[in-house]
């Protein structure tokens, strides 16, 4: 008899839907049906048992092919790469649990590595703005129950966070928002007329790269000063109309995405959005929230801030001093400036997401990919270590986009012999300790580091 598992968390986007119902075959080996999830979340579950999985670590051979090796050999190889490099980079963590992130941080500290997560090429600029200007935010539940004006700025949840609008922002009926979308005003600000813009009451087509100017106009208008006849492609009358709606709201939330974080100015766009939110709180209640991408990309920010005081771009090469300065210690900058000499890609796909020049620089040195699936990064690596899929085969804590921790569960077992990210990093940590002890036993004459390549 197939088993129905209820209230399962979805390991896809930052919305972290926790109302999924997964039907598993009676032998517990196959996922038969996934209810309530969006098309992408659905696919993640079915992919786990519906396709051929890599079950053993694979090491690149001199002829360019992969050869299966044991987990012990893979752990030894990874530990030696990290140990011998002068400045290794461990990057990723968008799609793993907080337990894995904490274990990886232990490894990074012992190996003297740079520890970075996907925020580095995503919402990292939000962190910088938050450092500078604070974060007047709320939980998604508050938005659902209270908000009557919603702004999506540079975000397209219709595609990137498919259930965000129906669960939290536009359509749900909350405690004080019993009329659902009928009682809500939706404002979408984006250079492109996206599918999200289709459901908006007001759509402002801001000139690409001029969001900062438009925010400045909103702030200036909110304080009663004159603004030019047109700012960033938007007419003065429209700006005044929108700021009036914002001032008269009972409760509003600005959701922003990559349109602010990754157009010219980056952190300053978010910074001034936070300033506008603060200004609006002179009139009514307004909040702001980053549309975090992966289901647990908020996790490393929470875990590492607790461990080291910084959420990302952590330079732990001095071991007892954590240093953070994106632009210098951020993954892409480190790669482009040839500043790292080993790379570990975990729970993400740097091969697909990084600029090709950065990938070429990183590829000069040993490259290890830790991922359940075959991806672009796994195909150009020296070593690919498969692990269980968090949220499907491995349980753990994940942080939703509003910094709410949720306990995820597993619905099936991982393929036989496949271990979790946490166990893998714990084993690498142990092996690093053994290498340190061996080196210490040899005496003070430490030889110059020799890089380890699969070809050798």
């Amino acid at each position, binding site marked *: 008899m197939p088993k129905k598992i209820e209230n399962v968390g979805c390991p896809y986007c930052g919305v972290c839907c926790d109302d999924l119902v997964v039907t598993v075959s009676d032998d517990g080996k196959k996922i038969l049906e996934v209810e309530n999830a969006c098309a992408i979340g659905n696919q993640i579950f079915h992919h786990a048992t519906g396709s051929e999985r890599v079950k053993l670590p694979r090491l690149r051979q001199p002829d360019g092919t992969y050869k299966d090796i044991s987990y012990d050999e893979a752990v030894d190889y990874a530990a030696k790469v990290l140990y011998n*490099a*002068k*400045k290794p980079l461990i990057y990723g963590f968008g799609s793993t649990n907080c337990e894995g992130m904490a274990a990886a941080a232990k490894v990074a500290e012992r*190996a*003297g590595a740079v520890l970075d997560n996907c925020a580095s090429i995503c919402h990292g600029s939000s962190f*910088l703005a938050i*450092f*500078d200007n604070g974060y007047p935010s709320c939980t998604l539940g508050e938005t659902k129950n209270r908000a009557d004006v919603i702004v999506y700025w540079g975000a397209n949840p219709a595609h990137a966070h498919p259930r965000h609008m129906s669960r939290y922002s536009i359509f749900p009926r909350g405690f004080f928002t019993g009329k659902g979308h009928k009682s809500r005003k939706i404002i979408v600000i984006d250079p492109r007329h996206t599918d999200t813009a289709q459901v908006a009451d007001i759509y402002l087509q801001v000139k690409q790269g*001029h969001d*900062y*100017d438009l*925010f*400045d*106009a*909103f*702030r*200036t208008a*909110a*304080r009663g*000063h*004159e*603004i*030019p006849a047109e*700012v960033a492609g938007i007419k003065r009358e429209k700006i005044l109309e929108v700021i009036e709606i914002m001032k008269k709201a009972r409760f509003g939330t600005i959701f922003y995405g990559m349109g602010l974080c990754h157009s*010219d*100015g980056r952190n*300053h766009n978010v*910074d*001034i959005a936070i*300033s506008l939110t603060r*200004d609006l709180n002179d009139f009514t209640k307004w909040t702001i929230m980053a549309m975090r991408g992966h289901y647990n990309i908020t996790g490393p920010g929470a875990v590492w801030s607790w461990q080291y005081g910084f959420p990302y771009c952590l330079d732990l*090469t*001095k*071991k007892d001093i954590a240093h*953070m*300065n*994106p*632009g*210098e210690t951020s993954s892409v900058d480190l790669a482009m*400036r*040839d*500043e*790292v*000499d080993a790379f570990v890609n975990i729970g993400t796909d740097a091969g697909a997401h990084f600029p090709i020049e950065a990938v070429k620089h990183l590829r000069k040195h040993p490259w290890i990919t830790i991922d359940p699936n075959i991806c672009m990064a796994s195909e150009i690596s020296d070593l690919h270590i498969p692990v269980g899929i968090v949220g499907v085969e491995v349980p753990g804590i994940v942080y939703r986009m509003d910094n709410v921790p949720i306990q995820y569960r597993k619905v099936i077992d991982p393929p036989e012999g496949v271990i979790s990210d946490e166990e893998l990093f714990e084993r690498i940590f142990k092996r690093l300790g053994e290498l340190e002890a061996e080196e210490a036993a040899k005496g003070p004459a430490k030889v110059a*580091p020799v890089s380890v390549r699969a070809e050798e």
Partner: protein
Amino acid sequence: MKTVTLTLTNPPELMLEGQNITPDNFAGKKAAEIATLDVWEGKQKSPLGKYFTVEGDGGATAEETKIVLRGDCTRVKRIGQQMTAGEIVIEGNADMYIGGWMKGGKIHVKGNVDSFCGIGMEGGELVVDGDAGHHLGSSPRGEWRGMQGGVIRVAGNAGNDTATFINGGTIVIGGDADIHISTHGEGGTVIVKGNAKGRVGGQMVKGDIYVFGEIENPLPGFQMVGEVEQEVDGEKGRFAHYIGDLGERHPVSKGKPVYANLYTRI
């Protein structure tokens, strides 16, 4: 004044962190002792002498010590960081954080520098003959008390985020500046002799900015209030005077709000 000459003979494979290369650390040390000071290449700590040949001894104090750097220091960071006195001359290019958090003395770079130079500066003088990267004279991440004093002069162009959170001191850019000048500024002066791309004085509370050329995208929060005749960095000219950022909070002094000033040459 005694001169210590460092010549980069064995360049690093990665980047070299040379926060110990300051007159303060070299003062009172013989050449052989200077060669034993720590520098970092990633997690690897090595003596300075591994990468540089050291000639000459340091003076008795930082004031009496001059450091000359020869060879290609494009991949050497943090030269002159936190220095309080003395002089550093870099004959070519240098990397990031040159003169970061400096309190006194003088640094002269004859080539270009990368980002984060002169960040958190409190005093002294940083002169760059070439171009500067981003975050010139800016505040460190998350620090809302930026540059406090001192002078930065860049003959060439500067990148973006110049003088973020500036509180005092002067920055003179001979060429053009990219976006964001004096964002969140609460004092100080920035002079751009070329053009500025945009977002000049965004979220600025107090302080002055002069732009001799054009501002490609002026902010809506700045309003023209008149014209003034002024001498700026030795050049006389007529400037249009704007106040702003009107979207930002402003302190009140003697019953009147205090705004930041932006001057563009007419």
